[in-house]
C-alpha cells in the first residue's frame, strides 16, 4: 500500500507543478470560466475514464467505448431526425448502450474470449452501425433544452455534464472503496481463479462491469451531442486510447488488481492541465498527445526504478 500512496503523492506533486506553472504564465488560467471550460472540453473522456478504471482493475480492457459513444450520438441524431421525441430517443440510446455493453460482457465472461479482441471487434462494429445510420451526413438542430443542457450552466455556472461527472465520481468511489462490489472487482482482477474458488460469480461481475461501461459510453455520446449541438459518424473516434492512457497514468495496473479512482482523478487533472497549458503555448494536438505518451511510459518506468530492488523478474505478458 505504501507504493500506492507514494504514487498518488507523486501524481499530486506533478499536478501542483503543472497547475502552478499554468497559473503563473497565463493570466486567465485561474478564472472560473477557464477552469470549467478545461473540464467541459474533455468531459466525455473523463467520464469514460471513471468506468474504465473498474474495467482495468478487473484485468480487462474495453476498446469499444469511443465507438459506443459514436453509436449513441448518431442514433440520437438519426432518431431525432425521423421525428422521435428527444426524451424517447435518449431512452433508446441509453438502452443501446446497455445492450452493447452486455454483448461485450457476454462474449468475454460467458465464452471466455479475450476482452482485447472482443472489444476490438465491437470497436469496429459499433462504429460501423453508427455510420450505417448517418452515412456521411451531419445532423444538428436539436431542441433548445437539449443543447442548453450541454452548453449552459445548470446550477450557477456549473454545466450539467460537470455535475454528472462529480456525482458519478462520488457514486463510483463509494462503490469501489466501500462496497462488496468494489472488493470483488479487485479480487477478480488480481486472481480470477481464486475469486472463482471463493464462490464469486466472476462471469456475472464482468458482465455487469461491461454493461455499466456501455451505458456510460452511451451517456457520454449524448453529452457530446448536447455539447457540440451536432453529430457525425466519427463522434468519439480514437477516444478509447486517450481514456486508457488517463487510467494507466493514474497508476491502475494493466494486469489488474491494483489502482484507485483517486489516482484516475489526479491523472485526469494532470492531463487536462497539461493539454490546456500546452494549448496556451500554441503546441499542436499531435505533439500534446506525444507528450502524454511520454508521460505514460514514464509512469511505468519511474516506479520500476524506485522499486527495482524489491521486485523479482516477471515474465512478459499482456492482457
Amino acid at each position, binding site marked *: 500500500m505504501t507504493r500506492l500512496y507514494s504514487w498518488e503523492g507523486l501524481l499530486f506533486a506533478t499536478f501542483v507543478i503543472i497547475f502552478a506553472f499554468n497559473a503563473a504564465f497565463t493570466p486567465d488560467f485561474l478564472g472560473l470560466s477557464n477552469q470549467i471550460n478545461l473540464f467541459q472540453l474533455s468531459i466525455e473522456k473523463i467520464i469514460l475514464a471513471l468506468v474504465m478504471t473498474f474495467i482495468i482493475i478487473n484485468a480487462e*480492457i474495453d476498446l469499444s467505448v469511443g465507438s459506443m459513444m459514436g453509436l449513441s450520438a448518431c442514433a440520437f441524431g438519426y432518431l431525432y431526425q425521423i421525428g422521435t421525441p428527444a426524451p424517447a430517443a435518449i431512452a433508446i440510446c441509453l438502452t443501446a448502450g446497455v445492450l452493447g455493453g452486455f454483448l461485450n460482457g457476454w*462474449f468475454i465472461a460467458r*465464452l*471466455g*474470449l*479475450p476482452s*482485447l*479482441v*472482443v472489444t*476490438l*471487434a*465491437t*470497436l*469496429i*462494429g*459499433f*462504429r*460501423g*452501425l453508427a*455510420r*450505417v445510420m448517418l*452515412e456521411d451526413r451531419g445532423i444538428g438542430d436539436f431542441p433548445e433544452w437539449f443543447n442548453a443542457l450541454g452548453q449552459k450552466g445548470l446550477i450557477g455556472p456549473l454545466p450539467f455534464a460537470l455535475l454528472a461527472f462529480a456525482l458519478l465520481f462520488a457514486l463510483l468511489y463509494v462503490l469501489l472503496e466501500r462496497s462488496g462490489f468494489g472488493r470483488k472487482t479487485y479480487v477478480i482482477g488480481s486472481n480470477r481463479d481464486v475469486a472463482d474458488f471463493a464462490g464469486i460469480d466472476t462471469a456475472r461481475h464482468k458482465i455487469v462491469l461491461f454493461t455499466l461501461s456501455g451505458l456510460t459510453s452511451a451517456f457520454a455520446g449524448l453529452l457530446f451531442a448536447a455539447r457540440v449541438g451536432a453529430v457525425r*459518424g466519427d463522434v468519439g473516434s480514437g477516444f478509447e*486510447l486517450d481514456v*486508457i*492512457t488517463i487510467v*494507466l497514468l493514474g497508476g491502475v495496473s*494493466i*494486469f489488474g488488481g491494483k489502482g484507485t479512482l483517486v489516482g484516475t482523478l489526479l491523472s485526469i487533472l494532470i492531463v487536462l492541465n497539461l493539454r490546456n497549458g500546452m494549448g496556451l503555448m500554441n503546441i*499542436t494536438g*499531435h*505533439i500534446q*498527445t*506525444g*507528450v*502524454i*505518451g*511520454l508521460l*505514460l*511510459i514514464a509512469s*511505468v*518506468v519511474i516506479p*520500476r526504478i524506485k522499486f527495482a530492488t524489491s521486485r523479482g*523478474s*516477471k*515474465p*512478459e*505478458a*499482456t*492482457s
Partner: protein
Amino acid sequence: MALLTRLSPAALRLLALLAVLALVLIFFSTQIEGYLNGRLFNRISSSVAIMALIATGQTLVILTRNIDLSVGSVVGFSAFATGSLISNHPDLNPLILLLYAAAVGTGFGMLNGVLVAYARIPSIIVTLASMALFRSALVEYSNAKSITSESLPAWLTDFPNMPVFSLGAMEFRAGFTASLVVVLIVHFALTRLRPARQFFAVGSNPEAAEMAGIDAHRTIFAAFALSGLMAGLAGFMFLARFGNITVVAGLGFELKSVASSVVGGVNIFGGSGSVIGAFLGAILVDLLETSLVRWAVVSEFWREAVLGALILLAVTTDTLFSRRLAALGARKSKESAK
C-alpha cells in the same frame, strides 16, 4: 472425421479460411455483375500488398504474447521520411531508398523492443504510448508539409503496378508479388528454422522456453524489431502506391493489422498461428470491404459493421473449436493410458 484427425488443427484452420474466402467470392459473384474479373484481383492485391506486410509483423509480435499498436504510426513515418528523402535526392539508388525505409522502421521497432523486452513494460502500454510519440515525431518532422506524387520519380510510382506475371486473368503486379515473397520467406522461416521457432516457444510458455535455454528477452526484442521492419517496408509500399503522404498516413492500420491476424487464426494469447493465416485474413477483410462497397443491396457503410461481426465470429469459432479439440485430445490420451 478421418480427415479431421489426419490434418493438423492449423492446416484445418487455413482450409476453413480458404473455404470462407471461396464462399464470399461465390456469393458476391451471384450478386454483382462482372464481379469475378481481373480488376477485382488487382484492386484487392494492391491494397493487400501493404496490409500483408504489416499483418506479418503483427503476427510475429502476437506470437510472443505481445501486441504492437504503433505500426500505423511507423508506416506513416516511414512513408513520409522515404518520400522526403527521394524528393530531395531524385537520383538516389532505389535499393538505398528501400534500405532507408527498412532502417527507419526497424529503428522504431527496436525502440519498442527495448522497452518491452528489457525494461519489461507491458507491450500494450509501450506501443499505445509510442503510437502517439511516433505520430508526433512525424508531425514535427513534416513541418506542416506533405509529400506529393509529382515530387516522386516515375520508377517509384510505377513500381507497384508493374506486371510481373499472369495467371489467367489475374495479373500479379510487382507490389503484391514482393509482399507475397516476403510473407512466404517469413512463413518458411517460422516453420523450418530453429531460431524462428523460438517465437512459438516463448509465446506458448515463456518459463518453459527460458528453461530450455531460449533467451525470451531477445526473442521478444526481435519480434518488435521485425514488426518495425515490416511496417517500414509497408511505408515504402504506401508511398509508392499513393504518392501523396500527409501526417495522417497509416492511421488506424494498427487495429486493421490485429484484425487481419485474428481473423487469420493467430491466437491473441500467443504461441500459435501462421503468417499465411494472417495473409489470408488480410485478403478476406479487404475482399469483404471492397465487395460491400459494390453491393447494391446494402449501403457501403455496412462494411465496418460486417468486419466487426466477422472478427467476433472468427474468434468465437476458433476458441470453441480449439477447446473441443483439446477435450478430444485429453479423452484420447486417457483412453490410451488405460
